[in-house]
């Protein structure tokens, strides 16, 4: 059936192509521009999720975010991919993707591409979406940048600390420090960056369970400076680029180290402190033989370690995962066709003292992309990938058809059919089957881990009404089959905050449907004023019970409004308003009504229902000293509403953020 579908996808392209054009821009993406990032008050990398409503997110601690891109939820596992300047840094571990563990700082981001449909991008099939972050880079000269930021959340006791109204301290949200050297000489560029980020975990909803497992004995520097549990991340990266007449390459190496990282381990339903290390080195190389032929290769190596940090459970993950990613791609133009042909290899290996049946496995893929003009004003792109591993195969295909109705309107139809192997996610369950017995007392699997299937359609109408107004409306449908979902119910001991879990059951044949609609308006009524209005709705229907329960934890409605005004180059003011509808978390139904904090006459309780979120942010940006100093001051959640994303997660109250960026050396 899959083969037939794939052939059907390709066939019309082969027989109907009558003209040839190179259409590199068949990537279906949302782009968050640098100017929008600059005028939005972002504190951490994960704050880019606040600028798109095609990504549904939730977080427990505010540092690790789960995301679902454009109705492509990987449900309880995070399988979306993060690239940094086209490099795959290996953040996907244990069903988590923490974008904040990238070696950069939010101030270094130039723009963000979000791939919102399954298709081939840089040799990767984006089953669950992909985010490619581009860092700032000068084309000429040398720039030295130093940045410092801090955030302070409200809700401390203040002078009431010594009265009957006393309450625990909330403490600061965290801080960030970064240093970047960007040096350019002719066609060569070198960027060296160092970053530190701290994030405290003192919210009352999670304080007890975090305090109970956290051993303070070996806090670094002066223990009194860090009296509270916090995540600390230090990182360094080096990016070398060369652009020649025929060839160009981009080499990236990075090291991210969190001496103390609180990993939310889903099978236990709680945070475990670990030492988290991510190492990476990779090259992307392009060589132009002629206008009709280009060869690209990408060679990436990442190493991901979860080492022991002293904890009261004496829990040790003993996990060192390696990934080698190789991709060779030939971009060509033959007769009336253009496209790409490529193949790739991913080797995943695990170093651990657990006795494994096999310590590595390989995934091979071969793929092609064709694009051509189907008929006048209608272009089509076909992506096809054949993937095999451990004797199993999967097929993935996408068709993107664009109809240029006239100079103002464009209609796009995107169809995709994806099969996905368990091996592709480097998942905890795969390694558990091979003997990585970290989950104790184990789990039950109902059925077999077959290939999961996803069928998607997207219909997108883009209209540039005039120079001041752009409108896009899209409708999307997703069908999931043979997805594996975990059923697990959590309880909390309200005395000490400890979490217990019911036995883990995995159901491997879950299915369901998602239907959604998205509306986006971008308005520039004046050059100095930009407004964004976005609305997204999605809902499931005709789904299995577990699928349905899981989807209930995703908000149905997201509404965004963003206004920014820059009367002069050196000053801007902005506001963002966001509404997110309520969510229901079936697996936390047993915690409903349990108290986690009592303050005078207030009893604060856990709930399996997350109320709708109304968030308004406001901020200003001002440059000083002939653009040598940039300052940002912004308030998040101005009206101090109760904002929570997860039943056992933190509440994000009114918070003040400050950012200062210095450009002490700037020579062109």
């Amino acid at each position, binding site marked *: 059936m899959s083969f037939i579908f794939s052939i059907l996808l390709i066939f019309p392209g082969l027989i109907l192509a009558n003209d040839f054009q190179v259409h590199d821009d068949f990537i279906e993406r949302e782009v968050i521009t640098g100017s929008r990032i600059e005028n939005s008050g972002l504190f951490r990398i994960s704050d880019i999720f606040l600028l798109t409503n095609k990504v549904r997110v939730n977080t427990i601690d505010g540092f690790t975010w789960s995301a679902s891109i454009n109705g492509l939820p990987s449900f309880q596992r995070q399988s979306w991919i993060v690239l940094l300047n086209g490099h795959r840094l290996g953040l996907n571990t244990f069903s988590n993707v923490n974008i904040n563990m990238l070696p950069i700082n939010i101030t270094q981001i130039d723009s963000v591409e979000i791939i919102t449909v399954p298709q081939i991008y840089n040799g990767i099939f984006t089953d669950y979406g992909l985010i490619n972050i581009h860092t700032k880079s000068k084309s000429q000269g040398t720039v030295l940048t130093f940045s410092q930021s801090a955030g302070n959340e409200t809700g401390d006791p203040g002078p009431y600390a010594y009265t009957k109204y006393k309450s625990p301290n909330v403490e600061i949200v965290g801080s960030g420090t970064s240093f970047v050297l960007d040096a350019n000489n002719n066609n060569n560029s070198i960027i060296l960056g160092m970053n530190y980020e701290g994030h405290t975990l003192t919210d009352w909803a999670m304080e007890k369970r975090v305090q109970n497992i956290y051993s303070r004995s070996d806090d670094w520097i002066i223990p009194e400076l860090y009296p509270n549990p916090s995540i600390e991340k230090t990182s360094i990266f080096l990016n070398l680029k060369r652009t020649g007449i025929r060839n160009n390459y981009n080499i990236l190496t990075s090291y991210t180290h969190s001496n103390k990282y609180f990993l939310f381990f889903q099978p236990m339903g709680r945070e475990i402190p670990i030492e988290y290390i991510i190492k990476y080195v990779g090259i992307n190389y392009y060589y132009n033989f002629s206008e009709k032929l280009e060869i690209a290769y990408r060679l990436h190596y990442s190493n991901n370690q979860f080492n022991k940090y002293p904890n009261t459970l004496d829990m040790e993950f003993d996990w060192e995962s390696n990934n080698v990613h190789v991709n060779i791609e030939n971009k060509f133009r033959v007769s009336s066709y253009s496209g790409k042909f490529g193949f790739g290899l991913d080797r995943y290996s695990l170093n651990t003292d657990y006795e494994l049946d096999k310590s590595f496995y390989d995934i091979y893929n071969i793929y092609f992309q064709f694009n051509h003009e189907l008929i006048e004003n209608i272009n089509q792109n076909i992506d096809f990938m054949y993937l095999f591993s451990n004797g199993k195969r999967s097929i993935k295909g996408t068709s993107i058809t664009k109809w240029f109705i006239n100079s103002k309107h464009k209609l796009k139809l995107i169809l995709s059919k994806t099969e996905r192997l368990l091996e592709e996610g480097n998942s905890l369950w795969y390694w558990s089957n091979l003997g990585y017995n970290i989950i104790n007392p184990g789990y039950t699997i109902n059925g077999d881990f077959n290939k999961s299937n996803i069928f998607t359609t997207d219909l997108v109408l883009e209209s540039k009404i005039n120079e001041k107004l752009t409108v896009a409306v899209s409708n999307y449908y997703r069908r999931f089959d043979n997805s594996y979902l975990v059923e697990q119910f959590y309880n909390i001991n309200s005395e000490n905050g400890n979490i217990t879990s019911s036995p883990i059951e995995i159901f491997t044949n879950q299915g369901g449907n998602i239907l959604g609609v998205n509306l986006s308006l971008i308005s520039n009524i004046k050059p100095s004023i930009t407004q964004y209005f976005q609305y997204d709705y999605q809902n499931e229907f005709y789904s299995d019970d577990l699928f349905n329960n899981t989807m209930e934890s995703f908000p149905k409605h997201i509404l965004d409004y963003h*206004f920014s005004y820059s009367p*002069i180059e050196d000053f801007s003011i902005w506001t963002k*308003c966001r509404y997110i509808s309520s969510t229901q978390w079936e697996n936390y139904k047993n915690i409903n009504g349990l108290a986690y904090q009592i303050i005078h006459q207030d009893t604060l309780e856990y709930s399996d229902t997350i109320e709708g979120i109304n968030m308004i942010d406001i901020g200003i940006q001002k440059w000083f000293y002939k653009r040598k100093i940039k300052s940002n001051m912004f308030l998040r959640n101005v009206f101090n509403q109760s904002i929570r994303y997860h039943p056992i997660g933190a509440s994000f109250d009114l918070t003040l953020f400050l950012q200062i960026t210095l450009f002490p050396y700037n020579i062109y």
Partner: protein
Amino acid sequence: MKKIIFLCLILFPNKGLIGSVNNNPFEYFSLSIELLKNVNNNDLHHFYQPQNGLKTSFSSPFYWGKIQASLGLIPFNGKERNYIDFIVVQPNLKWIKPLYTSSKMSFAIGGGVGLFVFSFSDLDDGFLFYNWASVTESELSSSYLSQIQYFINKKMSLTFNINIDRVYTYKPINLINISMGIGYINKTPDWIKLILQ
């Protein structure tokens, strides 16, 4: 809903706000020193007795209206021994909109944000660099201002302010302060303009 409408009125584009950008900000400055008195009475005052305080501020024309940076100090004494005395150190940044200006008088309103740093004075530890967090508490505040200035001459003025501050502690603190003082007005030195622009 009322809050959203209020915010819309302030922020959303309107001709008055967008059309009248001052192209020569920071042209002059006003430096003032004022005596400060807390005049309201609420839950905090059941535990603490405010004393007279001091405030100094720096104001200058901005792209619209004026911008003001200020620093206030007010001591609070505990009414019982358990309630530890503290001094409020209040750095603040406000935007001020003059509503009426003549050669002798001006009337303005404004609002802004700042920090309330509660520095507790009687803790056994005393204040040291590494334990600052345990002897001080700081919290975000918003403030609203009404200001009357009487210009004695081109360089000097008398200032009267009413400030309403809201401190976003878990149990919010509302303070109404009045202040009176004297201001000095002068052309902003070029080196300050260089930094600010």
